[in-house]
């Protein structure tokens, strides 16, 4: 199968991207973002008696649900839009550009896993997403392993139900989710389960995290009754197949944030004067910003290639999505690094918006594997595994 030259990015995809940019400019401007997530540096910095932030604007999220964004990757058969991955990537790029605090990405993670499971039960939970419920994927252990087979949760299956015990870690936007898709070890391997966030036996402990635009938690299960989505080993397999889509939307978010960091720093370099010139006049400032652009353009090109591969060339989805996540992680980290540095003193302060995107980028970089992690996996894929000594 060959890929379309234009990535399959047509008028529908463009319309969604344009609508998203307009909507976010109106409802999720950087001024609103600052007011929402940066109002309490004391709580952020580990202040006593303050609960970690999980700020987002629920009224804006309701509008996002009305616009149908969470339902985009949900198959039409489950009441969703069945939008191509290139369309989803285009939208998420805008979400990243606004550092939009919402459960959109975590809901996508859950949707991708459910989509790949492909069972009747999975369809039922996908319908909930199409109906406006937010979700998250609880599939990471306490060590932060991204391997589908690694989980600290165990499942005692009986028929289509299961009792979950143990703790899932690094669960994204957990406090905004109404249900979780959970990976857990059953007798025959790792299966996938779904459970409402408010079900008996489910408790959340929020992490204090660096990224103020997201929340993250450990989700503990104590003999909690969940529904079986895909038994072992199909559960782990579904999760594995969902990973390229997860990497791709994370790459899209990173590319968007990196572009905001680039443009914002370029604007600053045009107006901030030192030594009788706007600092952008000096090549020590100009050239690193060009390098940021170059790195982010590589990332953006690789992003659409990955999304398009998921749509049209599934045999290459893993390879291209790892490339996209690797490059986007490095590009965003570099953009964040140069943005703070080139803003100088003001860039080091809480009052400058750069830190919001800096922190979101650093978080996204680590999520589901940074560049070095994906390059190591790609080496096995493209060069071949290393023989045992």
């Amino acid at each position: 199968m060959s890929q379309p030259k234009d990535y399959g990015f047509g008028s529908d995809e463009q319309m969604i991207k344009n609508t998203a940019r307009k909507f976010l400019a109106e409802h999720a401007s950087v001024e609103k973002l600052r007011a929402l997530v940066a109002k309490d540096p004391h709580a952020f910095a580990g202040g006593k008696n303050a609960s970690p932030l999980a700020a987002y604007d629920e009224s804006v999220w309701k509008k996002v649900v009305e616009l149908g964004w969470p339902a985009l990757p949900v198959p039409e058969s489950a009441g969703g839009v069945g939008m191509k991955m290139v369309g989803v990537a285009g939208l998420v790029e805008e979400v990243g550009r606004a550092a939009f605090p919402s459960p959109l990405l975590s809901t996508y993670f859950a949707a991708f896993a459910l989509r790949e499971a492909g069972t009747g039960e999975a369809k039922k939970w996908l319908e909930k997403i199409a109906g406006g419920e937010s979700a998250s994927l609880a599939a990471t252990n306490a060590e932060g392993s991204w391997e589908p087979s690694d989980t600290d949760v165990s499942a005692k299956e009986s028929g289509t139900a299961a009792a979950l015990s143990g703790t899932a870690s690094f669960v994204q936007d957990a406090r905004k989710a109404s249900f979780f898709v959970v990976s857990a070890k059953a007798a025959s391997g790792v299966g996938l389960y779904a459970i409402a966030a408010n079900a008996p036996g489910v408790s959340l402990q929020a992490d204090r995290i660096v990224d103020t635009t997201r929340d993250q938690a450990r989700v503990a299960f104590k003999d909690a009754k969940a529904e079986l989505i895909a038994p072992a080993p199909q559960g782990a397999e579904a999760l594995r197949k969902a990973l390229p889509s997860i990497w791709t939307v994370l790459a899209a978010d990173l590319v968007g944030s990196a572009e905001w960091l680039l443009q914002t720093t370029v604007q600053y370099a045009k107006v901030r004067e030192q030594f009788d010139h706007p600092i952008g006049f000096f090549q020590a400032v100009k050239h690193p910003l060009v390098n940021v652009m170059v790195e982010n353009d590589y990332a953006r090109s690789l992003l659409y290639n990955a999304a398009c591969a998921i749509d049209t060339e599934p045999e290459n989805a893993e390879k291209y999505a790892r490339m996209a996540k690797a490059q986007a992680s490095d590009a965003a980290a570099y953009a964040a690094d140069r943005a703070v540095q080139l803003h100088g003193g003001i860039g080091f302060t809480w009052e400058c918006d750069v830190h919001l995107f800096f922190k979101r980028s650093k978080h996204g970089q680590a999520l589901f594997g940074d560049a070095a992690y994906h390059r190591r996996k790609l080496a096995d894929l493209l060069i071949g595994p290393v023989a045992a000594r």
Partner: protein
Amino acid sequence: MADEEVKEGSKDTPEQAEFRAYCRKWLAANRPAKPTFRLPQSPLEVMTDEQRIYLQAWQKKCYDAGLIGCDYPKDYGGGGKKGFQRIANQEMAHAQVPFLINVIGLGMGAPTILHHGSEENKKRYLPKLLSGEEIWCQGFSEPGAGSDLASVKTKAEKKGDVWVINGHKVWTSLAHFASWMIILTRHSNDDKYAGLTYFIVPIQSALGKGVTVRPLIKITGETGFNEVIFDNLEVPDTLRLDQVGAGWKVAMTTLLHERGAAPLVTPSAGGAGGDTIGRSAEALIDLAKKSKRDGRPASEDGYLRDKIVGLLIREEGLRQNFRRVRVGALCDHPMRIPLQGKLIGTEFMQAVGALGLEILGAKSSLYLGDENAPEGGQWPLAYMNTYGGTIAAGTSEVQRNILGERVLGMPKSK
């Protein structure tokens, strides 16, 4: 790359598809026999007469078959088609036939003459340029004018009906075989930019009569480029391109094409050279599998694996940039990717070359002519040659200025 190009045929018009099939068939049937002598890595290192004769004959054959100048008007020796040259270029690259020797003429001379030459000039010079019968070189850089091109000092003085040229050009590839040169000169010191005028000047026919060509030796030990000295060379006014004082504008046309960002698809350098060592990240995998480190294949070394994959990602990224540039909705600024082409392409090649040497370890010390040198010492040669890429046609630093100013809109650096 091959797959990519096969796919590119998917949007050909019926006429273009027919032409593509013709090119493919013709190239398969007419591929020249491999020469008994070594061909250099690019047209810019062609040194001997036997190399020149072989390559000139090949270009003429391609021209006669209609694979060169396809999109140029018929009046000027072209094929009068639209969108054919891109197809011929793809097929030549795909077929891995020898490169076209008249690369400076095809890539820069021809579009400059087409846009700025008189009707008479276009009729006289373009046909033999396209056929490769007359080789062209370019006179831009001088000892005192490199990155700051507009500071050229080579003087053009009007005396009666003729212009008298005096000055010194350097890094002039192919001057040793060239019939003609496109040259940027200064007719006035009153204004840095408006004091420039652009000409065509004879080289071969003027040797010893106002023109001296001397080879310059590169860090590789090879030659291929030259210095050209003008001592009272007389040139008729008819060889002037565009107006007196329009030299900078004409030079921009040349550079736009040289840096690969031009809208007009010009006949490219064509297919592969004699050796393609050090030109792809893919090749690094093979090299690492063949090389040893601590008694084990270098391809099992964690550090090298990470670096190789880093360049494989870059290589895919270059391909995807080329793809995305045609999807307007996914490009914020129309020149953002095109103006990066020269910078990132040449820096990629340099990184491949450098990593090749790292993989070779101790054997990277072995050079041309050493019986134990891996692949005949081509890896260190290729690596050293990549600096031609990052320096010529506007250094990487100049490219970053251009990108920072024209795309990101930052103030002009001095």
